[in-house]
């Protein structure tokens, strides 16, 4: 999760998010260069005492400042498109999980091997333990094996929601009557938080998502525990 006064992106927990961070750095560099150039030009022009009274046109400079931004856009667009198609790639997923958005909680179904279904409600303030994150903790987390390619199918039962986990670079609209597919792969063990990202009513801000990436053995033990409890 983000730390207080954090401005930048969170550390990546998936390969796709790593690529997004690199792309963000690349575009930020281009933007800073352009901004510095503009600020410098503004400073020079404002502080200059000279006025050219007979300026009527500038065909050469207009051509230059049309062609150069076009080149800059190509430099930005090429990695952008590559990343866009990378996010759609799904490499032989070993697990499929369905996430269904309701007003105002998420429910998850692991139906590949067994029938594991549970709801995930936000923990209210009174139920938090000391040190828990307010508005982010849930009663039942999404437990996933680490370094495993997972297919996440996202849908909704009533209105449009959006399933988001920023650390993994994931965001997908949960649309009723439609299944949207996400490629999910956690590179490291940890807990990753997200919040609903599509306005869905009064408690839209109070239906978070928590993913717990664990070693495979721990995941298997969790599955057994879930089946036993059901």
């Amino acid at each position, binding site marked *: 999760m983000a730390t207080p006064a954090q401005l930048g992106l969170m*550390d990546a927990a998936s390969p796709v998010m790593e690529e997004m961070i690199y792309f963000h750095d690349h575009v930020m560099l281009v933007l800073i260069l352009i901004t510095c150039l503009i600020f410098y030009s503004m400073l020079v022009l404002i502080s200059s005492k000279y006025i050219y009274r007979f300026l009527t046109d500038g065909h050469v400079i207009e051509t230059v400042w049309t062609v150069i931004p076009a080149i800059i856009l190509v430099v930005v667009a090429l990695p952008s498109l590559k990343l866009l198609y990378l996010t759609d790639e799904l490499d032989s997923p070993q697990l499929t999980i369905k996430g269904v958005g309701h007003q105002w909680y998420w429910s998850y179904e692991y139906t590949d091997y067994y029938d594991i279904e549970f709801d995930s409600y936000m923990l209210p303030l009174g139920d938090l333990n000391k040190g828990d994150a*307010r508005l982010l903790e849930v009663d039942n987390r999404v437990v996933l094996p680490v370094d495993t390619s997972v297919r996440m199918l996202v849908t909704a039962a009533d209105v449009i929601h959006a399933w988001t986990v920023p650390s993994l670079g994931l965001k997908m609209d949960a649309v009723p009557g439609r299944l949207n597919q996400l490629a999910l792969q956690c590179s490291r*063990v*940890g807990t990753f938080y997200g919040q609903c990202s599509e306005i869905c009513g009064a408690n839209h801000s109070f239906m978070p998502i928590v993913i717990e990436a664990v070693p495979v053995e721990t995941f298997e033990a969790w599955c057994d525990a879930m089946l036993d409890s059901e």
Partner: protein
Amino acid sequence: MSYKCMTLLRPFGILPVGLSHVAHVRSFEFIRFFLAISIQNCRFLNTLSQKGRTMAHQLMRAVPRLVARRAFSTSLARAGGGAGGMPAWQVNPRNVYEDRPDFPMPNVPYVSELSDAQKALKAKEAGDWKSLSDEELKELYRLKFHKTLAEAEAPTGEWKTVVGGTSLIIALTFVLYIIQKKYAMPAMPETCNYEWQEAMMKKQLQMRNNPVEGLASKWDYENNKWK
């Protein structure tokens, strides 16, 4: 075509007759000639409109002037204004006095209606300039110009008013916010107090939150202290 028709078409820069006298002119100068006529027409009609007369009356008065000045000879058209027969471009064609550092010579003097003393001074100016005292020279300058170049370019200090006013308003918003916080807003949840924040940070370190460049990367796990 009659002269009256010519004057009616003058505002549009069209001179339908008399083309024979420009037949020897090259086509480029031909176009510039028509442009010169149009610009002179606009200025001329503007002057007429300032006198507040009807259009028909103006045209009746204009006919003899037009015939005399422009209708027959290109050489007369070329005589007015800037290079190649075109009048010099003016930023302020309406003959209003303006102090502009980039156009330091306005079309009209600052004081146009002179008192008797000023008229006498102007008459003295027509003579030998060495006879004018420093005070008289300054007076003559001030008749012609409102401000010197240095005065026109001098900073006004307006920025102080703007910065001061903006700072005052921002300070007022701070006061309003403090009043709202003290009397109107509800209490912050217990998760915002120091002990809870400390416990939260311990938990984040335990679960290796942001271990690459973020929080957990700054903690030395072997020695249990910050790096």
